[in-house]
């Protein structure tokens, strides 16, 4: 993973602009009344931004090893377990 071609510079600036735009977008979207979709929209944008950062700034995309990706996916998977199984309790409780 030595010298990158300078085209990657263009990419970096492009990602940067996109991220800033997304930030604006999410603030704007929050001012709309989308009912229960507000949260979904906000999280989708956040996830999109996070993926951009991970893939391009953290070079997960071109990573020579699949292993880094596996580590990320595995961690997110276990986070999902934590959230989902906790919710299996909260969502089926008869109180609060």
């Amino acid at each position, binding site marked *: 993973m030595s010298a990158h071609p300078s085209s990657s510079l263009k990419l*970096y600036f492009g990602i*940067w602009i996109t991220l800033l735009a997304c930030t604006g977008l999410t603030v704007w979207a929050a001012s709309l009344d989308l009912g229960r979709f507000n*949260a979904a929209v906000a999280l989708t944008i956040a996830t999109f931004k996070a993926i951009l950062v991970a893939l391009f700034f*953290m070079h997960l995309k071109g990573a020579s*090893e699949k292993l880094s990706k596996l580590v990320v996916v595995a961690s997110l998977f276990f986070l999902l377990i934590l*959230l989902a199984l906790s919710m299996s309790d909260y969502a089926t409780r008869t109180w609060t």
Partner: protein
Amino acid sequence: MPDSQLTAAHNPALLHHFAEPQQQRDAASLGTWVFLGTEIMFFGGLFCTYLVYRRGYFGDWGAASKTLDVTLGATNTAVLICSSLTVVLAVWAAQTGRRRLLIGNLLATLVLGTAFLGIKGIEYKEKFEKHHVPGASFQFNNVRIPGHPDQYANPSHAEIFFALYFVMTGLHALHMIVGIGIFIWLTVMAWKGRFTPEYNTPVEMGGLYWHFVDIIWIYLFPLLYLIDRHP
């Protein structure tokens, strides 16, 4: 450190127990990613807490969230995104052997990171003034729930929101402070000309860490500031 003496044969940075530089780089990279994985779970506990209460006390949390300054929050998001750009430029500079560009970008990152903390400080100060800090002096009376103009938020539930606000942003800020420490060290090393196109793993790894902290904020911002903003 007698046992881990550098075998200064061909590459001064190659540690004795690695066969070749590539192996050492791969180990560092994997190590960093695994560490970031544990960080996901570290914040994950907080996200779980957040999810449970937000689900239970949505209205009260919306009211509490609305008292946060969304302009400052958005500004800080932008600041962090800019810092992520300077970081990735720094990594690029290190990999292509542009020492001055490297130092410049490391310094820019430091400035942006500090700016983030400064803005965070302003927000914290405001919370103190408004008595929005959980504890004995906490006050959150007569705040209406967004969308339900005749209903007041339950101060207790709002207090939990602010508790979590402080824990989440506080831990994030702590990560920023650690990051700034790392970047000061990187700047010094870069100043001394330690990084070459062949050896720049520390810059890369420091960069990964910084981006990760950025990603955490990318989630914290909507989760904390944008719960129920619309009029």
